[in-house]
Protein backbone atom coordinates (compact mmCIF):
# COMPACT_ATOMS: atom_id res chain seq x y z
CA UNK A 1 0.00 0.00 0.00
CA UNK A 2 1.37 3.41 -0.88
CA UNK A 3 2.07 5.88 1.85
CA UNK A 4 0.50 8.90 0.24
CA UNK A 5 -3.14 9.10 1.19
CA UNK A 6 -5.55 9.88 -1.55
CA UNK A 7 -7.50 13.08 -1.30
CA UNK A 8 -10.66 11.37 -2.42
CA UNK A 9 -12.61 10.81 0.80
CA UNK A 10 -14.34 7.82 -0.73
CA UNK A 11 -11.00 6.10 -1.13
CA UNK A 12 -10.28 6.56 2.55
CA UNK A 13 -13.61 5.02 3.48
CA UNK A 14 -13.22 1.73 5.31
CA UNK A 15 -13.34 -1.25 3.03
CA UNK A 16 -12.82 0.68 -0.18
CA UNK A 17 -9.07 0.06 -0.18
CA UNK A 18 -7.68 -2.51 0.23
CA UNK A 19 -10.25 -5.21 -0.44
CA UNK A 20 -10.69 -7.04 2.86
CA UNK A 21 -9.39 -10.60 2.90
CA UNK A 22 -11.85 -13.43 2.68
CA UNK A 23 -9.43 -15.92 4.21
CA UNK A 24 -10.90 -18.83 2.31
CA UNK A 25 -7.37 -20.09 1.61
CA UNK A 26 -6.69 -20.28 5.33
CA UNK A 27 -9.89 -22.22 5.78
CA UNK A 28 -8.95 -24.68 3.05
CA UNK A 29 -5.49 -25.22 4.51
CA UNK A 30 -6.84 -25.85 8.01
CA UNK A 31 -9.56 -28.06 6.59
CA UNK A 32 -6.88 -30.09 4.86
CA UNK A 33 -5.01 -30.37 8.15
CA UNK A 34 -8.16 -31.53 9.96
CA UNK A 35 -8.79 -34.06 7.20
CA UNK A 36 -5.22 -35.34 7.50
CA UNK A 37 -5.68 -35.80 11.25
CA UNK A 38 -8.97 -37.63 10.61
CA UNK A 39 -7.31 -40.08 8.23
CA UNK A 40 -4.26 -40.55 10.43
CA UNK A 41 -6.54 -41.30 13.39
CA UNK A 42 -8.40 -43.95 11.38
CA UNK A 43 -5.14 -45.50 10.22
CA UNK A 44 -3.69 -45.58 13.74
CA UNK A 45 -6.85 -47.23 15.10
CA UNK A 46 -6.76 -49.93 12.43
CA UNK A 47 -3.03 -50.55 12.61
CA UNK A 48 -3.05 -50.75 16.39
CA UNK A 49 -6.02 -53.06 16.74
CA UNK A 50 -6.01 -55.27 13.64
CA UNK A 51 -2.50 -54.69 12.35
CA UNK A 52 -3.61 -53.69 8.88
CA UNK A 53 -5.57 -50.93 7.23
CA UNK A 54 -9.20 -51.76 6.68
CA UNK A 55 -10.21 -52.47 3.09
CA UNK A 56 -12.66 -49.60 2.78
CA UNK A 57 -10.15 -46.99 3.96
CA UNK A 58 -10.03 -45.44 0.50
CA UNK A 59 -13.80 -45.19 0.26
CA UNK A 60 -13.91 -43.64 3.71
CA UNK A 61 -11.14 -41.18 2.88
CA UNK A 62 -12.74 -40.20 -0.41
CA UNK A 63 -16.14 -39.82 1.17
CA UNK A 64 -15.09 -37.59 4.01
CA UNK A 65 -12.81 -35.54 1.76
CA UNK A 66 -15.75 -34.98 -0.56
CA UNK A 67 -17.88 -33.85 2.39
CA UNK A 68 -15.49 -31.14 3.46
CA UNK A 69 -14.67 -30.05 -0.07
CA UNK A 70 -18.38 -29.56 -0.77
CA UNK A 71 -18.83 -27.67 2.48
CA UNK A 72 -15.82 -25.49 1.71
CA UNK A 73 -16.94 -24.73 -1.84
CA UNK A 74 -20.40 -23.78 -0.64
CA UNK A 75 -18.91 -21.46 1.98
CA UNK A 76 -16.64 -19.99 -0.68
CA UNK A 77 -19.59 -19.33 -2.94
CA UNK A 78 -22.34 -18.34 -0.53
CA UNK A 79 -20.53 -16.95 2.50
CA UNK A 80 -17.17 -15.73 1.14
CA UNK A 81 -16.30 -13.63 4.18
CA UNK A 82 -17.19 -16.28 6.77
CA UNK A 83 -14.90 -17.00 9.67
CA UNK A 84 -12.12 -19.34 8.49
CA UNK A 85 -11.92 -21.33 11.72
CA UNK A 86 -15.48 -22.53 12.23
CA UNK A 87 -15.52 -25.23 9.56
CA UNK A 88 -12.03 -26.70 10.25
CA UNK A 89 -12.78 -26.95 13.98
CA UNK A 90 -16.00 -28.82 13.21
CA UNK A 91 -14.16 -31.03 10.72
CA UNK A 92 -11.56 -31.99 13.30
CA UNK A 93 -14.16 -32.83 15.95
CA UNK A 94 -16.27 -34.89 13.55
CA UNK A 95 -13.18 -36.71 12.29
CA UNK A 96 -11.94 -37.49 15.77
CA UNK A 97 -15.40 -38.66 16.78
CA UNK A 98 -15.54 -40.99 13.76
CA UNK A 99 -12.16 -42.46 14.68
CA UNK A 100 -13.16 -43.12 18.27
CA UNK A 101 -16.53 -44.59 17.24
CA UNK A 102 -14.77 -46.83 14.72
CA UNK A 103 -12.36 -47.85 17.44
CA UNK A 104 -15.26 -48.80 19.72
CA UNK A 105 -16.84 -50.75 16.85
CA UNK A 106 -13.65 -52.76 16.56
CA UNK A 107 -13.55 -53.28 20.32
CA UNK A 108 -17.06 -54.70 20.27
CA UNK A 109 -16.09 -57.03 17.43
CA UNK A 110 -13.05 -58.21 19.34
CA UNK A 111 -15.08 -59.09 22.39
CA UNK A 112 -17.58 -61.03 20.34
CA UNK A 113 -16.31 -61.90 16.89
CA UNK A 114 -19.75 -62.91 15.67
CA UNK A 115 -21.05 -59.34 15.73
CA UNK A 116 -20.08 -56.63 13.33
CA UNK A 117 -20.71 -53.17 14.68
CA UNK A 118 -21.38 -50.60 12.01
CA UNK A 119 -21.81 -47.49 14.12
CA UNK A 120 -19.03 -45.53 12.45
CA UNK A 121 -20.51 -45.83 8.93
CA UNK A 122 -23.88 -44.80 10.36
CA UNK A 123 -22.27 -41.78 11.98
CA UNK A 124 -20.62 -40.97 8.64
CA UNK A 125 -24.06 -41.09 7.01
CA UNK A 126 -25.36 -38.69 9.63
CA UNK A 127 -22.37 -36.42 9.04
CA UNK A 128 -23.30 -36.44 5.37
CA UNK A 129 -26.86 -35.46 6.23
CA UNK A 130 -25.40 -32.79 8.50
CA UNK A 131 -23.22 -31.33 5.74
CA UNK A 132 -26.20 -31.35 3.39
CA UNK A 133 -28.21 -29.41 5.96
CA UNK A 134 -25.23 -27.06 6.43
CA UNK A 135 -25.22 -26.46 2.67
CA UNK A 136 -28.99 -26.02 2.58
CA UNK A 137 -28.95 -23.46 5.38
CA UNK A 138 -26.19 -21.45 3.69
CA UNK A 139 -27.90 -21.55 0.31
CA UNK A 140 -31.41 -20.78 1.50
CA UNK A 141 -30.63 -18.37 4.31
CA UNK A 142 -28.83 -15.52 2.58
CA UNK A 143 -29.27 -13.09 5.43
CA UNK A 144 -29.53 -14.17 9.03
CA UNK A 145 -31.89 -11.31 9.79
CA UNK A 146 -34.56 -13.15 7.81
CA UNK A 147 -34.77 -15.56 10.72
CA UNK A 148 -36.10 -12.88 13.03
CA UNK A 149 -39.16 -12.58 10.81
CA UNK A 150 -40.12 -16.15 11.60
CA UNK A 151 -39.33 -15.84 15.29
CA UNK A 152 -42.77 -16.73 16.59
CA UNK A 153 -43.26 -19.50 14.02
CA UNK A 154 -39.92 -20.96 15.04
CA UNK A 155 -40.88 -20.67 18.70
CA UNK A 156 -44.03 -22.65 17.99
CA UNK A 157 -42.09 -25.28 16.04
CA UNK A 158 -39.56 -25.43 18.84
CA UNK A 159 -42.19 -25.96 21.48
CA UNK A 160 -43.95 -28.62 19.43
CA UNK A 161 -40.67 -30.44 18.83
CA UNK A 162 -39.87 -30.20 22.50
CA UNK A 163 -43.27 -31.41 23.62
CA UNK A 164 -43.76 -34.12 21.02
CA UNK A 165 -41.90 -36.94 22.78
CA UNK A 166 -43.72 -36.18 26.00
CA UNK A 167 -47.08 -36.58 24.32
CA UNK A 168 -46.24 -39.65 22.26
CA UNK A 169 -46.65 -43.08 23.84
CA UNK A 170 -43.60 -44.36 25.67
CA UNK A 171 -43.09 -47.22 23.21
CA UNK A 172 -42.12 -44.68 20.58
CA UNK A 173 -40.44 -42.06 22.64
CA UNK A 174 -38.67 -43.71 25.56
CA UNK A 175 -35.09 -44.96 25.55
CA UNK A 176 -33.31 -45.73 28.81
CA UNK A 177 -35.86 -43.88 30.89
CA UNK A 178 -35.65 -40.60 28.98
CA UNK A 179 -38.71 -39.73 26.92
CA UNK A 180 -36.91 -37.56 24.40
CA UNK A 181 -37.01 -39.65 21.24
CA UNK A 182 -39.18 -40.22 18.24
CA UNK A 183 -38.56 -43.69 16.86
CA UNK A 184 -40.03 -44.35 13.48
CA UNK A 185 -39.19 -47.03 10.95
CA UNK A 186 -35.76 -47.81 12.28
CA UNK A 187 -34.76 -44.21 12.70
CA UNK A 188 -34.68 -42.50 16.02
CA UNK A 189 -34.33 -38.78 16.32
CA UNK A 190 -34.19 -36.46 19.27
CA UNK A 191 -36.37 -33.51 18.30
CA UNK A 192 -35.12 -31.58 21.31
CA UNK A 193 -31.80 -30.97 19.55
CA UNK A 194 -33.60 -29.04 16.81
CA UNK A 195 -35.96 -27.37 19.25
CA UNK A 196 -32.90 -25.87 20.91
CA UNK A 197 -31.93 -23.92 17.77
CA UNK A 198 -35.51 -22.77 17.08
CA UNK A 199 -35.82 -21.49 20.63
CA UNK A 200 -32.48 -19.67 20.51
CA UNK A 201 -33.63 -17.84 17.37
CA UNK A 202 -36.86 -16.93 19.10
CA UNK A 203 -35.09 -15.76 22.28
CA UNK A 204 -32.80 -13.56 20.21
CA UNK A 205 -35.65 -11.95 18.27
CA UNK A 206 -37.78 -11.52 21.38
CA UNK A 207 -34.99 -9.97 23.41
CA UNK A 208 -33.99 -7.54 20.66
CA UNK A 209 -37.59 -6.38 20.78
CA UNK A 210 -37.85 -6.13 24.53
CA UNK A 211 -34.39 -5.42 25.78
CA UNK A 212 -34.90 -1.77 26.48
CA UNK A 213 -37.78 -2.37 28.80
CA UNK A 214 -35.94 -5.30 30.40
CA UNK A 215 -32.80 -3.24 30.88
CA UNK A 216 -34.15 0.13 31.88
CA UNK A 217 -37.30 -0.28 33.92
CA UNK A 218 -36.13 -1.37 37.31
CA UNK A 219 -36.28 -0.82 41.01
CA UNK A 220 -33.27 -0.74 43.26
CA UNK A 221 -33.61 -3.17 46.14
CA UNK A 222 -30.72 -3.64 48.56
CA UNK A 223 -28.19 -2.33 46.09
CA UNK A 224 -29.26 -4.60 43.23
CA UNK A 225 -31.22 -3.36 40.25
CA UNK A 226 -34.24 -5.61 40.12
CA UNK A 227 -36.46 -5.71 37.05
CA UNK A 228 -40.14 -5.01 37.43
CA UNK A 229 -42.39 -7.90 38.26
CA UNK A 230 -44.13 -7.90 34.91
CA UNK A 231 -40.82 -8.04 33.06
CA UNK A 232 -39.96 -11.23 34.88
CA UNK A 233 -42.61 -12.96 32.79
CA UNK A 234 -40.42 -14.37 30.04
CA UNK A 235 -37.74 -15.70 32.35
CA UNK A 236 -40.41 -17.33 34.49
CA UNK A 237 -41.95 -18.89 31.38
CA UNK A 238 -38.56 -20.25 30.32
CA UNK A 239 -38.08 -21.61 33.80
CA UNK A 240 -41.47 -23.26 33.87
CA UNK A 241 -40.82 -24.68 30.40
CA UNK A 242 -37.56 -26.27 31.44
CA UNK A 243 -39.19 -27.70 34.55
CA UNK A 244 -41.97 -29.15 32.39
CA UNK A 245 -39.40 -30.78 30.13
CA UNK A 246 -37.83 -32.25 33.22
CA UNK A 247 -41.13 -33.57 34.53
CA UNK A 248 -42.55 -35.06 31.36
CA UNK A 249 -39.42 -36.22 29.59
CA UNK A 250 -37.15 -36.90 32.53
CA UNK A 251 -34.44 -35.09 30.64
CA UNK A 252 -32.20 -33.24 33.05
CA UNK A 253 -29.80 -32.13 30.31
CA UNK A 254 -32.18 -30.33 27.97
CA UNK A 255 -33.86 -28.67 30.88
CA UNK A 256 -30.56 -27.30 32.15
CA UNK A 257 -29.49 -26.34 28.62
CA UNK A 258 -32.64 -24.37 27.82
CA UNK A 259 -32.70 -22.49 31.06
CA UNK A 260 -28.99 -21.67 30.93
CA UNK A 261 -29.25 -20.39 27.37
CA UNK A 262 -32.19 -18.16 28.17
CA UNK A 263 -30.65 -16.61 31.27
CA UNK A 264 -27.36 -15.93 29.51
CA UNK A 265 -29.08 -14.41 26.48
CA UNK A 266 -31.09 -12.20 28.78
CA UNK A 267 -27.85 -11.12 30.41
CA UNK A 268 -26.17 -10.46 27.05
CA UNK A 269 -29.16 -8.47 25.84
CA UNK A 270 -29.50 -6.26 28.89
CA UNK A 271 -25.95 -6.18 30.29
CA UNK A 272 -27.49 -6.51 33.71
CA UNK A 273 -25.93 -8.93 36.17
CA UNK A 274 -29.15 -9.03 38.17
CA UNK A 275 -30.60 -11.41 35.57
CA UNK A 276 -27.80 -13.84 36.31
CA UNK A 277 -28.58 -13.62 40.01
CA UNK A 278 -32.28 -14.14 39.39
CA UNK A 279 -31.46 -17.03 37.07
CA UNK A 280 -29.17 -18.59 39.64
CA UNK A 281 -31.85 -18.21 42.31
CA UNK A 282 -34.52 -19.77 40.12
CA UNK A 283 -32.11 -22.54 39.18
CA UNK A 284 -31.32 -23.25 42.81
CA UNK A 285 -35.02 -23.33 43.64
CA UNK A 286 -35.81 -25.56 40.68
CA UNK A 287 -32.94 -27.89 41.42
CA UNK A 288 -33.96 -28.24 45.06
CA UNK A 289 -37.56 -28.89 44.08
CA UNK A 290 -36.55 -31.42 41.43
CA UNK A 291 -34.27 -33.19 43.87
CA UNK A 292 -37.05 -33.58 46.38
CA UNK A 293 -39.76 -34.63 43.97
CA UNK A 294 -38.11 -36.78 41.30
CA UNK A 295 -36.43 -40.05 42.06
CA UNK A 296 -34.22 -39.99 38.99
CA UNK A 297 -32.79 -36.61 39.88
CA UNK A 298 -32.04 -37.86 43.37
CA UNK A 299 -30.31 -40.91 41.96
CA UNK A 300 -28.18 -38.76 39.66
CA UNK A 301 -27.13 -36.46 42.47
CA UNK A 302 -26.35 -39.35 44.81
CA UNK A 303 -24.12 -41.08 42.26
CA UNK A 304 -22.45 -37.78 41.54
CA UNK A 305 -21.62 -37.13 45.20
CA UNK A 306 -20.24 -40.61 45.79
CA UNK A 307 -19.98 -42.69 42.61
CA UNK A 308 -17.96 -45.43 44.28
CA UNK A 309 -20.76 -46.17 46.73
CA UNK A 310 -22.92 -47.16 43.75
CA UNK A 311 -20.15 -48.72 41.64
CA UNK A 312 -22.16 -51.85 40.95
CA UNK A 313 -25.33 -50.05 40.02
CA UNK A 314 -26.15 -46.52 39.02
CA UNK A 315 -22.59 -45.33 39.46
CA UNK A 316 -20.96 -48.05 37.33
CA UNK A 317 -20.73 -45.93 34.22
CA UNK A 318 -19.19 -42.96 35.97
CA UNK A 319 -16.77 -45.14 37.94
CA UNK A 320 -15.62 -46.86 34.75
CA UNK A 321 -15.22 -43.48 33.11
CA UNK A 322 -13.08 -42.22 35.99
CA UNK A 323 -10.95 -45.37 35.87
CA UNK A 324 -10.56 -44.85 32.12
CA UNK A 325 -9.42 -41.27 32.59
CA UNK A 326 -7.04 -42.41 35.30
CA UNK A 327 -5.60 -45.13 33.06
CA UNK A 328 -5.12 -42.61 30.30
CA UNK A 329 -3.01 -40.38 32.49
CA UNK A 330 -1.17 -37.54 30.83
CA UNK A 331 -0.51 -38.96 27.38
CA UNK A 332 -3.13 -41.68 27.10
CA UNK A 333 -2.83 -45.26 26.00
CA UNK A 334 -2.69 -44.34 22.33
CA UNK A 335 -5.60 -44.69 19.91
CA UNK A 336 -6.66 -48.33 20.06
CA UNK A 337 -4.42 -49.04 23.03
CA UNK A 338 -6.91 -48.67 25.89
CA UNK A 339 -10.14 -50.35 26.89
CA UNK A 340 -12.67 -47.56 26.49
CA UNK A 341 -15.35 -50.14 25.71
CA UNK A 342 -15.42 -50.88 29.44
CA UNK A 343 -17.54 -47.78 29.88
CA UNK A 344 -21.19 -48.42 29.03
CA UNK A 345 -22.44 -46.34 26.07
CA UNK A 346 -18.95 -44.94 25.53
CA UNK A 347 -19.92 -43.93 21.99
CA UNK A 348 -22.51 -41.36 22.81
CA UNK A 349 -22.62 -40.03 26.34
CA UNK A 350 -19.12 -40.99 27.39
CA UNK A 351 -17.05 -40.40 24.27
CA UNK A 352 -15.04 -37.84 26.19
CA UNK A 353 -14.01 -40.60 28.59
CA UNK A 354 -12.86 -42.74 25.66
CA UNK A 355 -10.79 -39.83 24.33
CA UNK A 356 -9.39 -39.18 27.79
CA UNK A 357 -8.33 -42.79 28.10
CA UNK A 358 -6.71 -43.13 24.70
CA UNK A 359 -5.31 -39.65 24.17
CA UNK A 360 -4.80 -38.74 27.79
CA UNK A 361 -5.06 -35.36 29.43
CA UNK A 362 -3.16 -33.74 26.58
CA UNK A 363 -5.57 -35.12 24.00
CA UNK A 364 -8.69 -34.25 25.97
CA UNK A 365 -7.43 -30.73 26.62
CA UNK A 366 -6.68 -30.38 22.90
CA UNK A 367 -10.28 -31.34 22.14
CA UNK A 368 -11.55 -28.84 24.68
CA UNK A 369 -9.38 -26.15 23.12
CA UNK A 370 -10.83 -26.93 19.69
CA UNK A 371 -14.27 -26.36 21.23
CA UNK A 372 -12.90 -23.20 22.78
CA UNK A 373 -11.76 -21.97 19.37
CA UNK A 374 -15.21 -22.74 17.95
CA UNK A 375 -16.94 -20.84 20.75
CA UNK A 376 -14.45 -17.99 20.65
CA UNK A 377 -15.07 -17.51 16.94
CA UNK A 378 -18.79 -17.50 17.61
CA UNK A 379 -18.52 -14.92 20.37
CA UNK A 380 -16.18 -12.82 18.25
CA UNK A 381 -18.74 -12.93 15.47
CA UNK A 382 -21.27 -11.73 17.99
CA UNK A 383 -18.98 -8.82 18.93
CA UNK A 384 -18.31 -7.58 15.42
CA UNK A 385 -21.63 -8.20 13.67
CA UNK A 386 -23.50 -4.96 13.15
CA UNK A 387 -27.11 -5.81 13.94
CA UNK A 388 -28.47 -6.52 17.41
CA UNK A 389 -30.34 -9.65 16.37
CA UNK A 390 -27.20 -11.16 14.86
CA UNK A 391 -25.25 -10.32 17.98
CA UNK A 392 -27.71 -12.03 20.29
CA UNK A 393 -28.18 -15.01 17.99
CA UNK A 394 -24.45 -15.61 17.61
CA UNK A 395 -23.89 -15.22 21.34
CA UNK A 396 -26.77 -17.61 22.10
CA UNK A 397 -25.62 -20.27 19.65
CA UNK A 398 -22.01 -20.11 20.82
CA UNK A 399 -23.07 -20.23 24.42
CA UNK A 400 -25.27 -23.25 23.70
CA UNK A 401 -22.21 -25.09 22.34
CA UNK A 402 -20.02 -24.06 25.24
CA UNK A 403 -22.66 -24.92 27.80
CA UNK A 404 -23.18 -28.39 26.32
CA UNK A 405 -19.46 -29.13 26.34
CA UNK A 406 -19.17 -27.90 29.91
CA UNK A 407 -22.13 -29.90 31.19
CA UNK A 408 -21.11 -33.10 29.38
CA UNK A 409 -17.46 -32.97 30.34
CA UNK A 410 -18.44 -31.99 33.86
CA UNK A 411 -20.63 -35.08 33.98
CA UNK A 412 -18.00 -37.43 32.57
CA UNK A 413 -15.31 -36.22 34.94
CA UNK A 414 -17.57 -36.19 37.99
CA UNK A 415 -17.61 -32.43 38.41
CA UNK A 416 -21.36 -32.17 37.79
CA UNK A 417 -24.22 -34.66 38.05
CA UNK A 418 -24.68 -36.69 34.89
CA UNK A 419 -27.12 -35.31 32.39
CA UNK A 420 -28.24 -36.69 29.08
CA UNK A 421 -26.56 -34.10 26.86
CA UNK A 422 -24.31 -35.09 23.99
CA UNK A 423 -20.83 -33.84 23.17
CA UNK A 424 -21.40 -31.70 20.06
CA UNK A 425 -19.91 -33.20 16.84
CA UNK A 426 -17.96 -35.91 18.65
CA UNK A 427 -20.59 -38.17 20.09
CA UNK A 428 -22.43 -40.89 18.25
CA UNK A 429 -25.95 -39.71 17.52
CA UNK A 430 -27.59 -38.44 14.39
CA UNK A 431 -29.90 -35.76 15.73
CA UNK A 432 -27.23 -34.04 17.74
CA UNK A 433 -24.76 -34.10 14.84
CA UNK A 434 -27.22 -32.83 12.25
CA UNK A 435 -28.64 -30.16 14.54
CA UNK A 436 -25.20 -28.91 15.43
CA UNK A 437 -24.31 -28.68 11.74
CA UNK A 438 -27.33 -26.42 11.30
CA UNK A 439 -26.20 -24.39 14.31
CA UNK A 440 -22.73 -23.89 12.84
CA UNK A 441 -24.24 -23.03 9.46
CA UNK A 442 -26.13 -20.16 11.08
CA UNK A 443 -22.94 -19.05 12.83
CA UNK A 444 -21.08 -19.14 9.50
CA UNK A 445 -23.83 -17.06 7.94
CA UNK A 446 -23.67 -14.46 10.72
CA UNK A 447 -19.87 -14.36 10.62
CA UNK A 448 -20.04 -13.75 6.89
CA UNK A 449 -22.25 -10.74 7.53
CA UNK A 450 -19.97 -9.60 10.35
CA UNK A 451 -16.73 -9.72 8.38
CA UNK A 452 -18.13 -8.48 5.10
CA UNK A 453 -16.89 -4.94 4.47
CA UNK A 454 -19.41 -2.28 5.33
CA UNK A 455 -21.28 -0.95 2.35
CA UNK A 456 -19.90 2.43 1.25
CA UNK A 457 -21.00 5.08 3.71
CA UNK A 458 -23.44 7.43 2.09
CA UNK A 459 -24.09 10.24 4.54
CA UNK A 460 -27.82 10.56 5.08
CA UNK A 461 -29.33 13.69 3.66
CA UNK A 462 -29.44 16.37 6.28
CA UNK A 463 -32.03 19.08 6.48
CA UNK A 464 -31.05 22.04 4.36
CA UNK A 465 -30.57 24.32 7.34
CA UNK A 466 -28.27 21.85 9.01
CA UNK A 467 -26.33 20.91 5.89
CA UNK A 468 -22.66 21.86 5.79
CA UNK A 469 -21.29 24.05 3.08
CA UNK A 470 -19.77 21.93 0.35
CA UNK A 471 -16.26 22.83 -0.62
CA UNK A 472 -15.57 21.92 -4.21
CA UNK A 473 -11.95 20.95 -4.65
CA UNK A 474 -10.24 21.06 -7.97
Amino acid at each position, binding site marked *: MSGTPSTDPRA*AAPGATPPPPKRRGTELALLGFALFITLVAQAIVDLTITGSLRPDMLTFGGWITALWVVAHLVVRKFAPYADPLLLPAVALLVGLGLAVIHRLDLAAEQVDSTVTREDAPVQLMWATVGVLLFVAVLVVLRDHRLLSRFAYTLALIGLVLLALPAVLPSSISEVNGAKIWIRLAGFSIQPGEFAKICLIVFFAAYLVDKRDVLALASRRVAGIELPRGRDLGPVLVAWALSILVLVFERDLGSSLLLFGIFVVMLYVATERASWLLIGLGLFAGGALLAYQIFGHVQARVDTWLDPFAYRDGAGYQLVQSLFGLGTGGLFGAGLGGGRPDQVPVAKSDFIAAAIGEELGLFGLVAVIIVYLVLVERGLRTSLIVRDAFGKLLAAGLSFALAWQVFVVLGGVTGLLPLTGLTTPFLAYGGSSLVANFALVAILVRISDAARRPAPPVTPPRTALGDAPTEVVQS
Partner: protein
Amino acid sequence: MTAEIVLQIFRFGFLLLLWLFIFAAFRVVRADLFGGRAGRVASVPPRAAAGGRKKNRGPKTLVVTAGPLSGTKITLGEQPILIGRADDSTLVLTDDFASSRHARLTNRSGQWYVEDLGSTNGTYLDQQRVQGPLLVAPGQPIRIGQTALELRS
Protein backbone atom coordinates in the same frame (compact mmCIF):
# COMPACT_ATOMS: atom_id res chain seq x y z
CA MET B 1 0.72 -56.85 15.73
CA THR B 2 2.69 -53.71 15.31
CA ALA B 3 5.94 -53.24 17.11
CA GLU B 4 5.96 -51.40 20.40
CA ILE B 5 8.11 -48.56 19.09
CA VAL B 6 5.66 -47.86 16.29
CA LEU B 7 2.81 -47.74 18.80
CA GLN B 8 4.71 -45.17 20.82
CA ILE B 9 5.29 -43.11 17.69
CA PHE B 10 1.56 -43.29 16.95
CA ARG B 11 0.73 -42.35 20.51
CA PHE B 12 2.85 -39.23 20.76
CA GLY B 13 2.77 -38.38 17.08
CA PHE B 14 -1.00 -38.09 17.11
CA LEU B 15 -0.99 -35.84 20.15
CA LEU B 16 1.61 -33.71 18.43
CA LEU B 17 -0.60 -33.48 15.35
CA LEU B 18 -3.59 -32.39 17.45
CA TRP B 19 -1.57 -29.66 19.09
CA LEU B 20 -0.10 -28.54 15.79
CA PHE B 21 -3.66 -28.06 14.58
CA ILE B 22 -4.41 -25.94 17.61
CA PHE B 23 -1.23 -23.98 17.02
CA ALA B 24 -2.28 -23.33 13.42
CA ALA B 25 -5.74 -22.29 14.56
CA PHE B 26 -4.28 -19.90 17.11
CA ARG B 27 -2.08 -18.32 14.47
CA VAL B 28 -5.24 -17.45 12.57
CA VAL B 29 -6.86 -16.11 15.74
CA ARG B 30 -3.79 -14.01 16.40
CA ALA B 31 -3.68 -12.61 12.88
CA ASP B 32 -7.29 -11.59 13.35
CA LEU B 33 -6.74 -10.03 16.75
CA PHE B 34 -3.66 -8.00 15.91
CA GLY B 35 -4.92 -7.13 12.52
CA GLY B 36 -7.73 -5.53 14.52
CA ARG B 37 -11.18 -6.06 13.17
CA ALA B 38 -11.64 -9.21 11.24
CA GLY B 39 -12.08 -7.53 7.91
CA ARG B 40 -9.04 -5.32 8.14
CA VAL B 41 -6.17 -7.75 8.16
CA ALA B 42 -5.04 -7.19 4.62
CA SER B 43 -3.47 -3.80 5.16
CA VAL B 44 -1.12 -5.48 7.64
CA PRO B 45 -0.02 -8.91 6.48
CA PRO B 46 -0.04 -11.33 9.44
CA ARG B 47 3.74 -11.60 9.45
CA ALA B 48 4.18 -7.87 9.61
CA ALA B 49 1.64 -7.64 12.41
CA ALA B 50 3.52 -10.26 14.37
CA GLY B 51 7.04 -9.10 13.65
CA GLY B 52 6.80 -5.36 13.35
CA ARG B 53 6.57 -3.75 16.75
CA LYS B 54 5.82 -0.42 15.16
CA LYS B 55 2.10 -1.06 15.25
CA ASN B 56 2.11 -1.72 18.97
CA ARG B 57 3.75 1.62 19.58
CA GLY B 58 1.12 3.46 17.54
CA PRO B 59 -1.48 5.62 19.24
CA LYS B 60 -3.96 3.73 21.42
CA THR B 61 -6.39 6.36 22.63
CA LEU B 62 -8.05 9.50 21.42
CA VAL B 63 -8.33 12.04 24.25
CA VAL B 64 -10.45 15.17 24.33
CA THR B 65 -8.23 17.85 25.84
CA ALA B 66 -10.46 20.91 25.64
CA GLY B 67 -14.12 21.73 25.20
CA PRO B 68 -17.32 20.45 26.83
CA LEU B 69 -16.26 16.79 26.52
CA SER B 70 -12.81 17.40 28.00
CA GLY B 71 -11.39 14.24 29.54
CA THR B 72 -13.29 11.82 27.31
CA LYS B 73 -11.15 8.97 26.05
CA ILE B 74 -11.82 6.68 23.12
CA THR B 75 -9.83 3.52 22.67
CA LEU B 76 -8.63 3.27 19.11
CA GLY B 77 -9.28 0.09 17.22
CA GLU B 78 -9.20 -0.43 13.51
CA GLN B 79 -12.49 1.24 12.71
CA PRO B 80 -12.56 4.82 11.59
CA ILE B 81 -13.75 7.33 14.16
CA LEU B 82 -16.50 9.69 13.13
CA ILE B 83 -16.66 12.98 14.93
CA GLY B 84 -19.66 15.28 14.76
CA ARG B 85 -22.97 16.23 16.28
CA ALA B 86 -24.86 13.38 14.62
CA ASP B 87 -26.03 10.70 17.06
CA ASP B 88 -24.28 7.91 15.22
CA SER B 89 -20.85 9.49 15.42
CA THR B 90 -18.21 7.69 17.43
CA LEU B 91 -17.57 10.91 19.32
CA VAL B 92 -20.80 12.88 19.60
CA LEU B 93 -19.95 16.55 20.07
CA THR B 94 -22.25 19.03 21.77
CA ASP B 95 -20.46 21.94 20.25
CA ASP B 96 -22.32 24.68 18.41
CA PHE B 97 -19.37 25.17 16.10
CA ALA B 98 -19.26 21.55 14.96
CA SER B 99 -21.17 20.15 12.00
CA SER B 100 -23.25 17.02 12.31
CA ARG B 101 -20.65 15.07 10.36
CA HIS B 102 -17.52 17.00 10.99
CA ALA B 103 -14.39 14.93 10.67
CA ARG B 104 -13.16 11.42 10.48
CA LEU B 105 -10.05 9.67 11.79
CA THR B 106 -9.00 6.68 9.74
CA ASN B 107 -6.44 4.01 10.52
CA ARG B 108 -4.15 2.99 7.71
CA SER B 109 -1.46 0.47 8.59
CA GLY B 110 -1.39 1.63 12.18
CA GLN B 111 -1.20 5.32 11.35
CA TRP B 112 -4.09 7.68 11.79
CA TYR B 113 -5.24 10.20 9.26
CA VAL B 114 -7.66 13.03 9.95
CA GLU B 115 -10.03 14.11 7.26
CA ASP B 116 -12.57 16.91 7.15
CA LEU B 117 -16.00 15.83 6.00
CA GLY B 118 -16.99 19.18 4.57
CA SER B 119 -17.65 20.88 7.88
CA THR B 120 -18.83 24.47 8.07
CA ASN B 121 -16.15 25.75 10.42
CA GLY B 122 -13.33 23.45 9.46
CA THR B 123 -10.99 21.07 11.22
CA TYR B 124 -7.49 22.18 12.23
CA LEU B 125 -4.45 20.03 12.77
CA ASP B 126 -2.04 22.18 14.78
CA GLN B 127 -2.67 25.50 13.01
CA GLN B 128 -3.23 24.05 9.58
CA ARG B 129 -6.72 23.71 8.13
CA VAL B 130 -7.38 20.13 7.09
CA GLN B 131 -8.16 19.85 3.41
CA GLY B 132 -7.29 16.31 2.31
CA PRO B 133 -6.44 13.51 4.75
CA LEU B 134 -3.48 14.42 6.95
CA LEU B 135 -1.27 12.17 9.03
CA VAL B 136 -1.77 12.80 12.74
CA ALA B 137 1.18 12.33 15.07
CA PRO B 138 0.54 11.48 18.73
CA GLY B 139 0.21 14.65 20.79
CA GLN B 140 -0.65 16.83 17.82
CA PRO B 141 -3.83 18.78 18.66
CA ILE B 142 -6.84 18.46 16.37
CA ARG B 143 -9.26 21.34 16.82
CA ILE B 144 -12.94 21.15 15.99
CA GLY B 145 -14.91 24.21 17.09
CA GLN B 146 -14.24 24.61 20.81
CA THR B 147 -13.08 21.03 21.13
CA ALA B 148 -9.47 19.89 20.97
CA LEU B 149 -8.44 16.27 20.60
CA GLU B 150 -5.17 14.44 20.51
CA LEU B 151 -3.90 10.91 19.99
CA ARG B 152 -1.95 9.28 22.77
CA SER B 153 -0.02 6.05 22.78
